């Protein structure tokens, strides 16, 4: 069946291996090749996980917002599914960024949470906002309206993110010296190579997981339609979900 090959095809396989290889290489470079930072010592290595996670999270939210705009313009449910999957997954990455940020704060400043690190605080607020995406979808029954409202949410939340960053930064009179957070701006060469490799690896990981999720959604929709054609009642596979319902192509 051509669709089966499309779902579990060589492309997804290649992508998975590429993600594993690049992310592995990035972490290996971070651990063994990049020099130990003079100020913070070994604990600074979490930088190579935390910052890529945060950047990929934001890109995922942006992609979710752009897909939402495309959905609102076209009404094509596939865009809604893209938006849903991207936001859902970015939310998980966002939790990862918050946890690694908290660990880093503990290691360098001795506290699990610091309010004078505006990026981290902004991330918490962004997380709290996007965490309402699922409850919002769950509480709207009509699928078409659910998609439409979720898309409006994704657009509004996408616009909220940069303003929120500005507001939180303004609220902070004293900002920690940010030698290392400026995404490679003044990193020494070895660190920069390790950082960018980790970033690409993390992005590949996001794309791979996203593709798997999309493949699973399509497979589930196909299974449902096959069951319906066989005359069975389409029973829900898995738990209650607010994921967009799609008709298999």
């Amino acid at each position, binding site marked *: 069946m051509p669709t089966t090959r499309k779902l579990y095809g060589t492309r997804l396989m290649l992508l998975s291996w590429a993600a594993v290889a690049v992310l592995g290489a990035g972490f290996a470079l971070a651990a063994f090749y990049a020099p130990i930072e003079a100020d913070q010592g070994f604990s600074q290595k979490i930088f190579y996980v935390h910052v890529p996670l945060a950047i990929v999270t934001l890109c995922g939210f942006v992609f979710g917002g752009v897909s939402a705009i495309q959905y609102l313009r076209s009404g094509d449910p596939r865009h809604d599914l893209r938006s849903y999957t991207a936001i859902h997954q970015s939310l998980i990455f966002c939790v990862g960024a918050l946890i690694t940020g908290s660990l880093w704060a503990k290691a360098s400043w001795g506290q699990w949470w610091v309010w004078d690190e505006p990026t981290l605080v902004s991330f918490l607020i962004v997380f709290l906002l996007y965490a309402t995406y699922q*409850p919002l979808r769950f*509480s709207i029954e009509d699928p078409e309206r659910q998609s*439409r*409202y979720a898309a*409006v949410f994704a*657009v*509004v939340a996408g616009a909220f993110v940069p*303003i929120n960053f500005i*507001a939180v930064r303004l609220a902070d009179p004293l900002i920690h010296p940010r030698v290392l957070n400026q995404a490679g701006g003044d990193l020494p060469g070895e660190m920069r190579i390790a950082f960018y490799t980790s970033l690409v690896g993390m992005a590949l990981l996001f794309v791979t997981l996203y593709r798997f999720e999309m493949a699973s959604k399509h497979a589930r929709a196909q299974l449902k339609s096959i069951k319906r054609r066989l005359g069975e009642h389409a029973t829900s596979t898995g738990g209650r979900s607010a994921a967009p319902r799609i008709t298999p192509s």
Partner: protein
Amino acid sequence: MPHHGSPHGDVMRLQTRSPEVAQRNTPSTFGAARAVLQKDLRLERRAPQTLVAMTLFSATTYVIFHFALDRDSVDGQLASGVLWVTMLLAALLGIGRLFVSDRDEGGLEGFLLAPVDRTALLFAKGAALLAFLLALQLVAVPLFALLLLGPTPDAGTWLQLLLVLVLADLGIAVVGTLVAAIAVQTRARDLITSILALPLLVPVMIGASNATAPLLAQAGAEPLPGRWLALLALYSLIFGLLAYAVFDFLVED
């Protein structure tokens, strides 16, 4: 109601056939917005409900703050925080009720049947919420000064405070209308209103509380920092445009 042949579309067709008739029968966006706003205000005046609840809620919250903080008077940043947390939570009550009567009594359907621009509803509801917030603060802010506030503000400080209140209310009204329009169509309306509005209003609260704090300082009012007013204005502007852009998608059915 069929999804495609919307009444709006029919009017468009009518307009191409006989412009004069359609022109005469179609009220302007502004006229429609004013009619809806007047309806909302009249409803509240004849059977006061939301405003009374918001005012009582604020007064009780002050009492709770008195006991929770164990303070007879507050000043500076703490006073500003108490005031704005109370205003924010009271505003949530208003946001939660904004579209409820229209949905329950069929006002929304009536509006959708009327040959007017959907944006009129956004303007009307935003203005209604702004009016509610200002009316609430007309009572709740002097009450705060009476019950909890340590320093006594002079006339100039009151004027500056009024400026901050209006700018912050504008932000709350814009975001609140957007959230209310989303939440009214959901099953768990109250929950969605709160969890959606609170994070979206964090920047407004940052601006409002930081702008208010120097005005309520114990040692006498300090000058109003302009950057917080700029933040409040910018936030209202951006979310106003955003609400204008997406509102049509929230009221089509």
